[in-house]
């Protein structure tokens, strides 16, 4: 949201919440077009190197490393929430 939307100079809001099962990170990008990255096709990491191209790995890794991902478009704002469970 920061790297891919350089035209917008609005602030980005990042909220961290610890509780329940673990850590919840909620990021809001204000005044932008909808971009539901959760619906993007997943990059195929099993392709041969000749067929691989740079890109798409950030979303792939995010999906891999967190336990939940939620997307909402609220009043012209993209809102992405990650949940990372923490073992106690």
């Amino acid at each position, binding site marked *: 949201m920061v790297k891919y939307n350089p035209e917008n100079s609005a602030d980005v809001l990042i909220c961290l919440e610890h509780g329940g099962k673990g850590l919840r990170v909620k990021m809001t990008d204000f005044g932008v077009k909808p971009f539901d990255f959760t619906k993007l096709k997943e990059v195929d*990491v099993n392709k041969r*190197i000749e067929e*691989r191209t*740079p*890109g798409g*790995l*950030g*979303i*792939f*890794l995010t999906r891999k490393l967190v336990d939940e991902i939620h997307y909402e478009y609220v009043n012209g704002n993209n809102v992405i929430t990650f949940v990372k469970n923490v073992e106690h």
Partner: protein
Amino acid sequence: MFDIRVTENGEVTISGRLDAAQVEKARSILDTIDQSCVLNMKGLDYISSAGLGILLATQKRLMGSGHKIKIVNMSGHIRDIFHYTRFDTVFEIESEPTR
């Protein structure tokens, strides 16, 4: 702070955090590499998808002329990233994780 340099013996060392903001700095060095080389990751704390992208592009360019990057001193965390993204099949990786 990210740093990349080529040592006297031709080894490329990278350290710090290789994220999107540092990719052009990394590219400025990696684009000068035209032979097989060792990439020493000792001191590399973090690599983003953009960092992975520049490494992939460099490896593909070198392989086109029969060369390749060999990675040494990779941390456990970055080794996990390479495993998830299957970059461990793209690069020769030496040494045990230094967790």
